[in-house]
């Protein structure tokens, strides 16, 4: 039995209308996305005569998207985003597995304090870190390089990721660890041979989440980078909007492109994504 009660048990009229209701709500829900996608394939002539919302007179799909890559720095921004996001995901996975393992499996004074500190760190406003972190990156010479964003995101996301891994590792059957103890297995071996193979699903969920969080970041891209050769897609798109004020079709195409990686990631790994969000629901 589930709630709300299955619509199959309802009167025939309701049963027939239910899918229609869902489609109507969903259409309204995604209206802005339809609009931007439609505009991304319009011709400039269409826009010139004010045909923003009607059916396009002709389609310019390839030309518009090609223009984004040839006439703007978008390809570079894409590359920058990957250079920042992928290493961050990798480092976060390693650090959070190590820390999560210790927090879940060892009882020591300060364990709870550390746990609280990680949650707190995850929820604080970014602005409280802005001036000192920017200053720090300037001093060590990382400002306006991808390393600044990799370093910052790795550390910030590790807080959330550690909580996530800690909860997952704490749920693993205790007998495994008891047996290892009896055998005299060293903590390194426990981590490598017992924990690592078992946490793979958790790491998959974490990977998609961290990828999305870092890819979508805008604030730190503004604060820690300046040059087009370093800026990720979010900051790049914002710059583009200033340059191509009237070329809405090009901006729309660029906007769709920025959205594609997280959306594709989400559809491929949906189960993991949802599991991650609802399990590690401490994320702000």
């Amino acid at each position, binding site marked *: 039995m589930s709630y709300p009660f299955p619509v199959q048990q309802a009167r025939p009229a309701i049963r027939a209308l239910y899918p229609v209701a869902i489609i109507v709500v969903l259409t309204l829900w995604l209206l802005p996305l339809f609009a931007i996608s439609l505009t991304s394939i319009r011709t400039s002539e269409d826009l010139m005569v004010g045909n923003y919302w009607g059916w396009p007179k002709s389609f310019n799909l390839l030309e518009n998207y090609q223009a984004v890559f040839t006439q703007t720095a978008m390809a570079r921004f894409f590359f920058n985003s990957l250079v920042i996001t992928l290493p961050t995901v990798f480092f976060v996975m390693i650090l959070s597995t190590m820390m999560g393992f210790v927090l879940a499996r060892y009882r020591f004074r300060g364990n*709870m304090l550390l746990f609280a500190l990680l949650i707190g760190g995850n929820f604080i406003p970014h602005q409280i*870190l802005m001036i000192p972190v920017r200053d720090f990156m300037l001093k060590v010479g990382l400002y306006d390089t991808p390393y600044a964003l990799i370093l910052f995101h790795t550390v910030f996301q590790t807080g959330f990721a550690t909580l996530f891994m800690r909860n997952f590792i704490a749920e693993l059957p205790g007998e495994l660890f008891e047996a290892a103890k009896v055998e005299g297995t060293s903590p390194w071996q426990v981590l490598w041979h017992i924990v690592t193979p078992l946490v793979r699903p958790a790491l998959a969920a974490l990977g998609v989440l961290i990828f999305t969080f870092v890819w979508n970041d805008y604030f730190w891209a503004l604060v820690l980078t300046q040059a087009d050769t370093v800026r990720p897609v979010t900051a790049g798109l914002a710059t583009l909007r200033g340059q191509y004020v009237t070329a809405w079709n090009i901006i729309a195409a660029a906007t769709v492109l920025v959205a594609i990686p997280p959306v594709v990631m989400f559809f491929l790994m949906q189960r993991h994504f949802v599991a991650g969000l609802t399990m590690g629901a401490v*994320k702000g």
Partner: protein
Amino acid sequence: MSDVLRASSGRTRDRRLPSSWWRRHREWITPALLLAPGLILFLLIIVIPTLQSFRISLYDWDGMGPMSWVGLGNYRELIVDPQFLTSLRNNVIWLVLFLIAPVGGLALALLVNQKIRGIRLAKSLFFMPLVLAPVTVGVVYSWFYDPTFGMMALIFQAFGATAPAILSDPELVTFGIVAAALWPQVAFCMVLFLAGLNNLDEDVLGAGRVDGARGFLMFWHVVLPQLRAASFIALTVTVIGALRSFDLIAIMTQGGPYGSSSVLAYQMYEQAIFSYRMGYAAAIATVLFAVMAVFITWYLSRVVRAERRRDR
């Protein structure tokens, strides 16, 4: 920290390890080594900068030259700064309106929690705004609101009216941005409530049904109490999300017109990056931190209590 690490097991024999010193101490050395890199980085990038910001807020500083001590001067300036009051008021508007998100998320979750054909795809499509970058959402909505060729204008024209220029009207602008921000936030809450609905206790539902509970009574007295965990999390992420709002404001209005859509997070950024007033900016950040600390403490106390209960 290392000396307080209490090994979780007794002494074990292992012939492969050469030194008896290592054998005696590895039970705490390894965990300490595993914690060290993450912990050091966390102190360096999160904890220390937070404390530094508190300190900077007591100085007058342009970010490069010498810092001069002004004590609480920045805070004294804040409480009479009309822009600060506008930002604070906007933060309150964000906070209050964002409470629509848990309600809307629950409503959508109830709508799609059915086993009918194609429902999985429908759910995925409902989730989609959640994975979009705020920058994307900002661009999409700016354009939606455009008074000459936006969708908004089209809808108003259909009723023979002229659309208001939402993003350039000081009275409407914050509401317009919040509406855009609610889009992904409702999706987020929907995901959380769907997970909650999937974990309902079937026996309790059945009992409620046998007892003749239906309609609103069933929802209020049987279902909602079981969604307490999901509601708690949805409320927390919504409050934190509302107070953290920055991206959409930066993208859609840059705080304008004339600062009327600014919030503390944006005003802080503006003061630091464009006006080079680091001390003043740090003071704004500290106020925002203090407001959020209230919610963080409330959240932490509940989570830590639950954690202790589980430990026993």
